[in-house]
């Protein structure tokens, strides 16, 4: 293997560079921030009762959001599984996909349009002769928005777990005469319970670190999550020690939860292989089950469908033309587009690099534990508060960069990191499969490194890569965290413009902006999937 020494550098390069990027982008900002905040002040900040309140509220709202999302997702998933032929089911699966990628600000605008003081629900209440009520801002609004995002997520995973039940089980159930209650208790629920810890942990993490929803719908210092408190400490109070203390608490809690989840992750009993012949569920005809399914889907429509519909309906109003012909809007569109493509592309590049390194460690050298550790670093952005990363990077870049324009760069860098877990989620299985299929052949033919990536891997994982790119780009296009901290009129992205207009109660202009943002995200997703992914076979 003498020739290997000359190629060793290039073999390790992609993985090494990606790993250094990820570790550096997470580690350096945290070090920079900690250096800027003397230890004594951090301890002092921790003792503040306000911090205790913020931490407790973050946990409390996350527990409630997770519980509600999952409690609603269970009947919805069962309804979707029992009624694959209903029109509602087909509409829902589409709607749920939209809710999964919808930028937070769009959903928030939709929710405000339905549930605000002059929203649809209050219009209805007023029409029957009651007083309009304030119920949107505060804990209730936060829960509404978190259920909007996470109930569809949980329902999708639950539905998948029910669909994984071997169809032969339905034949057995009909032979044994199990009714719809028994089938739920003995087949559907056990299937969902297998994925429940993972779903609950993911939803909890997303709600616990929620930013845009709490910033806009929290309605005051009483309803504040750690993430929002970090924003306030940095943007309003310039209190770096407090921000570091808050970030430390958040990272610690997320690490403990993550570790507990990994530790508890046991392999279930597993089902036997199946012949995959279709057998009908015997519980579709029961009238009570039918009623429950109708109710579940109606509720889901009210919670998820109505806000999405509201964005479309309210987007067309008297101000539409004026807003659409305003340069402010299109400059924001342009910035968002650039941020999205750069962040998405960087995310995809980092993902490829990491996975290349992981593959080298795992199948090239058999260092499985190290490979798993490296792969796990890709999930770190889930627990690192993006605002902290952005602030740390700001401190690091301040000597070299123009402070006014730095917001966009930070948005790109931090969003590239934030998209990484999603990229890996999509790309890792595809890369592993490609490796399984072609490893021996490539070894035999001596195809390695760049050639292997270009000639063998890319055609095999292209579809998955395009999906990963599309998800990361769409997330970046809709992000309002980092840019809210460092944005100005001159670096305003589309979601920030939307946030500012909602904050100024320009609801009609905001609705048009939201519609444009939704259009941008859909177009971005479609263009990337079509042109990067190539034609589907």
């Amino acid at each position, binding site marked *: 293997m003498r020739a290997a020494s000359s190629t060793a550098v290039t073999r390790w390069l992609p993985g090494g560079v990606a790993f250094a990027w990820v570790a550096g982008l997470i580690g350096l900002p945290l070090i920079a921030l900690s250096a800027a905040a003397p230890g004594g002040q951090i301890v002092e900040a921790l003792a503040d009762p306000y911090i205790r309140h913020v931490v407790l509220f973050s946990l409390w709202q996350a527990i409630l959001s997770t519980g509600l999302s999952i409690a609603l997702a269970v009947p919805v998933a069962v309804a979707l599984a029992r009624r694959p032929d209903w029109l509602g089911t087909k509409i829902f699966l589409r709607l749920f996909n939209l809710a999964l990628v919808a930028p937070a600000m769009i959903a928030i605008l939709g929710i405000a349009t339905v549930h605000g003081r002059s929203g649809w629900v209050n219009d209805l209440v007023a029409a029957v002769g009651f007083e309009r009520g304030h119920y949107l801002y505060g804990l209730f609004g936060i829960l509404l928005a978190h259920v909007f995002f996470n109930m569809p997520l949980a329902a999708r995973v639950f539905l998948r777990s029910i669909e994984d039940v071997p169809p032969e089980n339905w034949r057995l159930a009909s*032979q044994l005469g199990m009714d719809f209650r028994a089938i739920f208790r003995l087949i559907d629920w056990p299937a969902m319970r297998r994925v429940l810890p993972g779903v609950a942990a993911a939803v909890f993490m997303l709600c616990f670190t929620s930013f845009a929803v709490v910033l806009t719908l929290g309605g005051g210092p009483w309803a504040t999550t750690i993430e929002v408190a970090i924003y306030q400490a940095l943007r309003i109070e310039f209190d770096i020690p407090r921000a570091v203390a808050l970030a430390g608490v958040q990272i610690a809690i997320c690490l403990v939860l993550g570790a507990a989840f990994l530790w508890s992750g046991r392999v279930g*009993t*597993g089902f036997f292989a199946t012949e995959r012949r279709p057998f009908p569920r015997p519980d579709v005809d029961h009238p009570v089950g039918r009623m429950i399914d109708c109710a579940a889907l109606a509720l889901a429509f009210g919670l998820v469908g109505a806000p999405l519909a509201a964005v479309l309906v309210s987007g067309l109003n008297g101000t539409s033309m004026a807003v659409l012909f305003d340069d402010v809007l299109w400059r924001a569109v342009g910035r968002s587009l650039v941020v999205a493509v750069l962040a998405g592309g960087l995310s995809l590049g980092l993902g490829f690099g990491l996975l290349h390194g992981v593959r080298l460690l795992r199948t090239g050298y058999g260092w499985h534990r190290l490979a798993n550790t490296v792969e796990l670093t890709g999930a770190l952005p889930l627990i690192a508060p993006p605002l902290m990363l952005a602030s740390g990077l700001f401190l690091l870049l301040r000597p070299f960069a123009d402070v006014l324009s730095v917001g966009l760069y930070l948005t790109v860098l931090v969003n590239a990191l934030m998209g990484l877990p999603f990229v890996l989620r999509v790309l890792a299985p595809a890369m592993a499969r490609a490796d399984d299929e072609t490893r021996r052949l490539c070894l035999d033919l001596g195809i390695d490194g760049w050639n292997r990536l270009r000639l063998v891997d890319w055609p095999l994982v292209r579809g998955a890569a395009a999906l990963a790119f599309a998800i990361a780009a769409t997330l970046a296009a809709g992000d309002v965290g980092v840019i809210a901290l460092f944005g100005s009129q001159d670096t305003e992205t589309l979601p920030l413009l939307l946030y500012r207009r909602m904050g100024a109660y320009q609801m009609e202009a905001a609705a048009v902006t939201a519609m444009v943002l939704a259009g941008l995200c859909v177009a971005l997703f479609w263009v990337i999937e079509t042109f990067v992914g190539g034609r589907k076979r």
Partner: protein
Amino acid sequence: MIEIDRLRFAYEAIQMEFSLQVSRGECLAIIGPSGAGKSTLLSLVGGFETPLSGRIVIDGKNIGDLRPDARPVTTLFQEHNLFAHLSVEQNIGLALDPGLKLTAAHRQEIGEALERVGLSGMDRRMPAELSGGQRQRVALARTLARRKPVLLLDEPFSALDPPLRRSMLNLVDDIRRDRDMTILMVSHLPDDAERIAQRVAYIENGRVLGVYETGRLFGNDPPAEIAAYLHKPAES
């Protein structure tokens, strides 16, 4: 007494029409080439497929419109007879209460059924902890607990190795005698038929071509129309 009368069914390009009579307490084997419709016939009797026309009469009652669980039959499939996430006791218990609310009497009955199939004390095991043969024994114990007069065997033992298969067939035969059960058994192994069936029906292309005494079929002078099938080398 089972009477299958011009039962029609279409699967892909094959038009099937079955007519067959089985006496009470008899074990009838169904043999024939793959794709001939053997399993389909059992699915029709079990209620998992709906015929285009024709009648299935068991003990004078037309069962064609009954749901699978309401029919006086129970089926043992080749695979997937158990729920993988339920214990042995729960899997058998489903025969006694489809909502799995088990009483002490139920548990005793489960214990007796397990004893009958030679798996006493295995009630807490999960299916994944059992061998293939043990899993089929659990499924057989459940068919005992269901107390249906007709047992349909859809190649349940064909994945087991020969000695194990023979012992399972002997067990089924003993149970048939004890309970006076009627058995329809699909098999692609003529040997199985020879071991426990009194008569053998030969199916080809969706038709019952003939029903024969087992002794004659495996004697020196098999009927000409199925000699070719029987003399084919056994499929592995």
